[in-house]
């Protein structure tokens, strides 16, 4: 199912936020994460096809190419009437619309009165915008997100996405992929007891996305302070990105603006 190495070499790297131009009859093909996407421009319409494939761990690039051949007719297609005569299209990343529960593969213990920084990679959605005015067509998750429930009981709580993570403590060890956004999470344990980090709730809809020169996406850092009770904590979203991210530009604003000027939020059941 994966594209041969030879073909991969002839393909170019895809980028978030830049304008691509297609001529009527042309198709732009993308291969990234668990997804293949075909965007076709016809005289009167845009067509979008997508397919889920197993992720190739060795593939670090977002591959794209423009062809004059139409994609396989048997695939499901979404058709959109052209909003204007513009031939441009661009792809914008978006964080999930629900909060994401981060679950380290192996639980991590944070000693009493200490703190740590973990780096979390989260799943992105791809927004496709076309035409002169950038009309929004669809939003595709780049992998199938799994759902989970966060709440005291099955009656009260909220549905969240769930993501398993290696909870890496060293930034260099975090695999850099254009389809993952890296969020640095600083966890401060102010309790006199150690904190066993089995999972925590990351408010992904409140995070904006910023792209660096290499095409890697970053979100502002998140600080979680656990003062007394394990089930409640204060969460703050930083204004700026971490210095290691280098020079970045805003690619997509946060889906939601947090309340109270936004930066401090008391979270119930942040650690699950």
């Amino acid at each position: 199912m994966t594209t041969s190495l030879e073909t991969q070499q002839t393909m170019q790297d895809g980028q978030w936020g830049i304008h691509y131009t297609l001529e009527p009859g042309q198709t732009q093909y993308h291969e990234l994460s668990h997804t293949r996407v075909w965007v076709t421009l016809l005289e009167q319409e845009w067509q979008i096809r997508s397919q889920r494939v197993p992720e190739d761990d060795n593939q670090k690039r977002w591959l794209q190419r423009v062809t004059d051949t139409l994609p396989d007719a048997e695939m499901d297609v979404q058709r959109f009437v052209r909003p204007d005569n513009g031939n441009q299209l661009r792809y914008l990343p978006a964080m999930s619309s629900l909060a994401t529960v981060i679950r380290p593969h192996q639980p991590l213990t944070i000693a009493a009165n200490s703190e740590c920084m973990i780096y979390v990679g989260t799943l992105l959605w791809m927004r496709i915008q076309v035409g002169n005015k950038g009309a929004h067509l669809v939003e595709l998750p780049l992998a199938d997100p799994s759902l989970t429930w966060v709440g005291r009981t099955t009656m009260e709580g909220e549905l969240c996405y769930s993501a398993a993570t290696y909870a890496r403590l060293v930034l260099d060890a975090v695999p850099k992929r254009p389809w993952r956004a890296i969020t640095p999470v600083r966890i401060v344990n102010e309790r006199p007891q150690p904190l066993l980090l089995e999972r925590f709730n990351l408010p992904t809809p409140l995070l904006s996305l910023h792209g660096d020169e290499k095409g890697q996406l970053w979100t502002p850092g998140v600080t979680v302070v656990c003062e007394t009770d394990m089930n409640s904590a204060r969460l703050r979203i930083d204004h700026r990105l971490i210095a290691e991210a280098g020079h970045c530009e805003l690619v997509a604003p946060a889906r939601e603006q947090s309340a109270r000027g936004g930066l401090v939020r008391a979270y119930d059941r942040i650690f699950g």
Partner: protein
Amino acid sequence: MIEQFENSLMQFVGAIAWSKWISTLFLLILGILLASFAARGVSRFMEERASRHHTVMVRRLVFYIVLAIFFVAALREAGFSLDVVLGAAGILTVAIGFASQTSASNMISGLFLLVEKPFEIGNFIEVEGTIGEVVAIDMLSVKLRTPDNLYVRIPNETLIKTRVVNRSRFPIRRMDLTVGIAYAEDLERVENLLLELARQNSVSLEEPKAFVLVTGFGPSSVDLQFSFWVPANRVLEGRSQMMVAIKKALDEEGIEIPFPHTSIYAGSHSEPFRVELLRPETSTKKGDPDADQNG
């Protein structure tokens, strides 16, 4: 004779205070118009800010309040004293109450339903075997739209008296599937396989965790209960997807899902059954003494 009749008619018509009645009628029509405008305005204002249920309730309340104000004003204009009208209404209520006990009971039940709020418009409820989406909660009855698109009217009294299951009250639901496995199969292997399916399925929630219980030793299979949680709005999809996945996974693993069958077993301490091979029926009948006698 005709002239006399005409004269009396003219006198009667002339005696009616037309202007008073016209203004009464005008007030009533104005009341209906303004009440509908006000209700529509409130509904538009609330649509984006409140649930469908609350929007409908407030819309109806505004409509009736505005209408009542204009109705009272119209009565005064027509020359009715409000005290007399209210007194008459009291007597009328008792009379109507006796005459239409069912309607009154439904109306009161409707009020209790509004206060108790066991369901809202848009919820999926189950009443006496009827499952459907609540499309309206009215003075006398609740209207449901069933999944096969039938319109069902259920009197409010029934809803107060009987068991009502609200399927949309909580955001998540547990699906319990019964899976029968052949006696020869390894139960632990099947359990791991089912839990792995729950992990892979995107509709099935990670938390609360899925689980497998052995519920009984059936006549032809070991019965397992496979339970997993799904979002309330994806129940059908979740159940069907999982059933297909279970069948496929068990087939791939060569695990038998037995259909009901009966094994005749005489027990280990008794003699095995004697099995005798008989000749075809036609030839046996020839040698049968009974057949000869009857023939």
